């Protein structure tokens, strides 16, 4: 069959590369001679994009069959292209939810493993990878094998959070959590500055399984880091409406907004309004899990808001040892450079994951949405230098601007371990992505 022409593939932040997706139901058959998998393309940067010299990538989204579900234990197994949205749709009415969910439901199970995603319950339940019991993979020498904490544990640990660089993830097995309803009891609380924010997150952690905060990162001085803390837990069946939440109308952005729409002024206005919305110090009530977990999924293709140049999300974690003032220092770098973030999210992490290169560690994470402009590279460099000083690191699922030397300095011995495992499983570096070329020199 003649090869189809190359097209433009892009990450969620609109960072793009020339490539060709191979689609099919039978991943085992079609994965033999391609060297990177991608799913729904929701990683923000270049993690799911092929390197320049090798345009073919496997798209897993047609491989979406559920292979087993035990209603007694919650043990679940499926092909790696199954979307979290489909999993939610099918199993939430039966009282089960993914043990960990990121801020969008439009991700595949394979992607959730590769990025070792975290959610609002990271401080309590860890990362998605902590709940994975087994993976079926195609590795560099062509073998298809099963790996788990017992079987090929090195491959297993490097694959969780390994951004697809250890092989193709074909099947994922993990434990689902029981939920009492499809509704969330949510409490939101106005927070006046970054120090109060970190105290509030810490105080809420033992009491609330789900916590996260939104920061108005245009506020300065004593208001730096003001925002809204959102905490939640599953509503008990007798608190919640008996009906299931209805999927609302999902508007879609059909064109790229011109870049002036998200100017300093509109960003300021949005952030101010969002902050003022929480006019009471505290409020609480029952909300649907969709509005609690996936507020941005309510608008299809919301990334078009950032125009043709797209955006980058800068997400870092600052270790507990760096002290409470470290978050303020990072926000100061952003504001000093006039960097305006439309949306800024803060969350505390409770523990490291089992993944060799997984992102979280105990401390505070900040996620900043930044429209791509001429000076974005300098801004990311400056943020990375600050994060390095604090002893922190960045999240590969979001990144497209970090320089190799910064990444190597942040990761240190973890990177050595990752490389050693790759040396064992893929000595010729078959599995590569645009991101691994940039950050690992593949």
């Amino acid at each position, binding site marked *: 069959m003649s090869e189809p022409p190359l097209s433009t593939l892009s990450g969620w932040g609109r960072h793009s590369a020339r490539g060709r997706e191979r689609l099919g*139901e039978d991943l085992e058959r079609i994965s033999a001679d391609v060297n990177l998998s991608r799913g729904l393309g929701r990683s923000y940067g270049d993690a799911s994009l092929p390197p320049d010299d090798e345009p073919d990538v496997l798209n897993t989204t047609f491989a979406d069959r559920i292979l087993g*579900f035990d209603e007694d234990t919650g043990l679940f197994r499926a092909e790696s292209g199954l979307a979290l949205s489909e999993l939610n749709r099918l199993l939430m009415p039966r009282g089960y939810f993914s043990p960990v969910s990121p801020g969008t439901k439009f991700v595949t199970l394979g992607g959730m493993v590769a990025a070792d995603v975290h959610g609002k319950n990271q401080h309590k339940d860890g990362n998605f990878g902590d709940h994975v019991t087994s993976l079926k993979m195609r590795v560099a020498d062509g073998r298809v094998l099963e790996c788990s904490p017992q079987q090929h544990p090195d491959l297993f640990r490097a694959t969780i959070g390994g951004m697809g660089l250890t092989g193709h993830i074909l099947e994922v097995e993990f434990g689902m959590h029981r939920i009492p309803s499809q509704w969330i009891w949510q409490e939101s609380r106005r927070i006046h500055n970054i120090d109060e924010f970190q105290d509030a997150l810490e105080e809420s952690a033992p009491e609330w399984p789900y916590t996260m905060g939104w920061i108005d990162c245009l506020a300065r001085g004593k208001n730096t880091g003001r925002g809204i803390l959102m905490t939640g837990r599953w509503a008990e069946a007798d608190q919640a409406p008996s009906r299931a939440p209805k999927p609302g109308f999902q508007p879609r952005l059909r064109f790229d907004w011109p870049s002036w729409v998200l100017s300093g002024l509109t960003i300021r206005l949005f952030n101010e309004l969002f902050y003022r919305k929480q006019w009471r110090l505290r409020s609480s009530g029952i909300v649907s899990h969709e509005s609690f977990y996936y507020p941005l999924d309510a608008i299809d293709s919301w990334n078009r808001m950032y125009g043709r140049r797209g955006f980058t999300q800068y997400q870092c974690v600052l270790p507990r040892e760096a002290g409470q003032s470290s978050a303020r220092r990072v926000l100061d770098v952003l504001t000093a450079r006039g960097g305006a973030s439309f949306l800024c999210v803060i969350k505390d992490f409770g523990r490291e994951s089992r993944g060799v290169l997984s992102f979280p560690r105990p401390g505070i994470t900040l996620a900043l949405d930044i429209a791509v402009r001429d000076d974005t590279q300098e801004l990311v460099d400056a943020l990375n230098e600050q994060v390095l000083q604090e002893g922190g690191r960045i999240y590969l699922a979001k990144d497209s601007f970090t320089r190799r030397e910064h990444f190597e300095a942040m990761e240190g011995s973890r990177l050595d371990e990752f490389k050693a495992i790759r040396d064992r499983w893929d000595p010729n570096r078959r599995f590569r992505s645009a991101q691994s070329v940039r950050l690992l020199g593949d």
Partner: protein
Amino acid sequence: MRVAFLGATKGMGRALARLMAERGDTICLLGRNDADLERSAADLSVRGAADPVPSVVCDLEKPETFASAIDAARETLGGLDAVVVTAGVFATQDELEADPALAEKLVRINFSNTVMFCEAAKKALLEEGGGALCVFSSVAGERGRKPVIIYGAAKAGLTRYLEGLDHKHHADGLRVVTVKPGFVKTSMTAGLDPPPFAGEPDAVAQRVLGAIDRGAPVVYAPAPWRPIMAIIRAFPRAIMRRINF
């Protein structure tokens, strides 16, 4: 509804079988690859079909297996209310011109063998006192078009066969549903440039299930393909010679 389903492991068939499973229909899977059938059976049973979902090996390349496969399905299901055929092969006109053996195989599978399968299915359904026979043909069979000459010819033949079957057996309770998908984004069309109005398998499946329930004889999916094909059928030959669609 008790359904024997040939082609439920992939594409539009997978989407349609899932809808049936979610509303509680009883399904027996027919297909050539036992391991693949087992995976789809697991998927459908978690989605609400009976557990376990039975399957019977049946290869569209082997007409001698058709009658026994349908009988086996009928027996496991304890009767038969519908037979669905979504299986088939696709190749571009260029590929078929370059490979006569492939062209011969495509015409045989998509036309002769599908007809023979339907003959066996029709017989079983008539013995049950009627039921739905839903078969996926294609808009490619509506007009001789440059990009789909051979594929379209096989589908045109299939469409005419199904039309005749409907005329002859409607009074006997046989509801023949001819599905004419336009371009739908499945693994079959992966790598081709999707035209305007390209459809998603789930939306197509919704329309088809509605047609099966109503006993509608012909269903275009996605819907805009009905007027599009009406226009294309009306084009004079001089235009068809010139355009590449």
